[in-house]
């Protein structure tokens, strides 16, 4: 039987392989410091499907860039436009606490809702402060996954700063997006995953860390790792290729690509 890698080397995706992109963004042409090609949502989804992605958990670019309530409504609209493919990660900005919590409360039982996304750098709110505590308490009480952008060199969201947060909230279900991005950030993220039961590693940013995936997944229990592409900032083919072409057994790839994330959120998405 051909492996996932052998299929990919022929330009094909192995039939039956399940891929959930647990970290993505969708928008409507928002601009940012780097140039990002914007495709209509239908085209982004077509591209994702072409490389085998069966579902994407997305937050709104509009929300990320400062308009959280409006952006959250837009991403929920997209879950209805693409049911069973686009799932929402509602963006929480501490500056819009009441509005964002009201939206999470409103949509938490919606089949399109999966979790909450925070981005301390873009929200100008450092994770080392207590400004996210109200969110954490809410999400622990409701058993909701929080996905946080992290980057070791960005003062607002160095993953190392989560140690103090998690010592206060060890029950917080936390997806560390990008694993801190750098070599040091990855090692600090791994320490957190090994120390706290409900911390999970979105290995997207480890792309920049000089750590190969084959070695990275030896550093924490395999169930701790989840796949995210960071599209539509990054191209989803980058992270997909990184997993599909790696020298890793197919059953491990399947855990990384979908099984682990579904186990974390406690439901099947595809």
């Amino acid at each position, binding site marked *: 039987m051909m492996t996932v890698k052998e299929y990919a080397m022929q330009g094909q995706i192995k039939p039956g392989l399940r891929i959930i992109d647990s970290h993505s963004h969708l928008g409507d042409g928002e601009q940012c410091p780097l140039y990002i*090609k914007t495709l209509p949502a239908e085209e982004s989804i077509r591209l994702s499907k072409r490389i085998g992605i069966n579902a994407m958990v997305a937050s709104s670019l509009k929300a990320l860039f400062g308009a959280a309530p409006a952006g959250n409504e837009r991403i929920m609209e997209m879950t209805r436009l693409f049911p069973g493919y686009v799932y929402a990660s509602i963006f929480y900005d501490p500056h819009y606490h009441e509005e964002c919590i009201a939206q999470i409360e409103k949509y938490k039982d919606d089949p399109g809702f999966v979790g909450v996304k925070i981005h301390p750098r873009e929200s100008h709110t450092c994770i080392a402060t207590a400004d996210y505590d109200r969110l954490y308490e809410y999400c622990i009480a409701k058993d909701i996954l929080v996905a946080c952008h992290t980057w070791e060199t960005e003062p607002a969201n160095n993953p190392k700063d989560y140690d103090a947060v998690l010592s206060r909230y060890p029950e917080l279900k936390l997806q560390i997006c990008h694993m801190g991005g750098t070599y040091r950030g990855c090692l600090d993220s791994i320490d957190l995953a090994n120390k706290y039961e409900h911390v999970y590693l979105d290995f997207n940013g480890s792309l920049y860390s*000089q750590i190969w995936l084959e070695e990275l997944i030896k550093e924490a229990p395999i169930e701790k790792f989840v796949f995210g592409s960071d599209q539509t900032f990054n191209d989803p083919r980058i992270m997909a290729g*990184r997993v599909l072409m790696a020298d890793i057994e197919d059953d491990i790839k399947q855990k990384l690509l979908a099984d682990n994330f579904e186990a974390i959120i406690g439901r099947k998405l595809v």
Partner: protein
Amino acid sequence: MVFKDINCNFYMQPQPLQYASDHDSVASVCEKNNIVTRAIYNLDKAGDANDVTLRYARESAGTEYPVIRLMPPVYPEETYTRDEMIRLIDNDKALFRIHPKNFAAPMYTWLYDWMFDILSESRTPLLVSLQELDLNDAAAVKEKYPELRLIITNTDQWLNRQYIGFCKHFRNVYFDTCNTIEYYGIENMVGLIGADKFLFGTYMPEKEPYDKTFQILFCELSQEEKEMIAHGNFERLVEVRA
């Protein structure tokens, strides 16, 4: 599809958390991923790093081209004479890489002096990482040496407006694909400046090769454009030097 890697590096000793990092393990990964030819560069800072690179390339039966760390002609013991440089180009089909930041040797015309003449006249590619390059310095060099074949590696998505603009302004400027990670980037940039401007590059062992091969295999370019990026441009610029 076969690949030819313009940015394939190695260390003398295995590195922590890198699945492949010394010459032989990197070569083995290349073999498993259809990377049949590569321009190899020694990341070690030892004084004999270039000699080691040349030795591996000479033993490779034509699958490896040496990338020589080029220091400006200031201190004789760390650089090359005109004759030595020409011999490396003629006999070993060497390429050269400069390090404006990491070895404190900025890309100034007056610093590299006659070296840019030799590179231009011989159509020998000069590699430099965008992470180290001041594009204003590079622009001054390109004004004086328009025929210099500059391959800018390790691009940076946060600088994509600048380096694509640079390529539109100056001819004989090329990029490797190791950091082309932005959304729909390969299709978008090829649409702007052409597939002849991109060379497949992995930046092993500091990065894995997997995303780069997958990107070419699954990109939405014509088969001809894919082949140019995967290996055709390498053949033209490095092997044939047409």
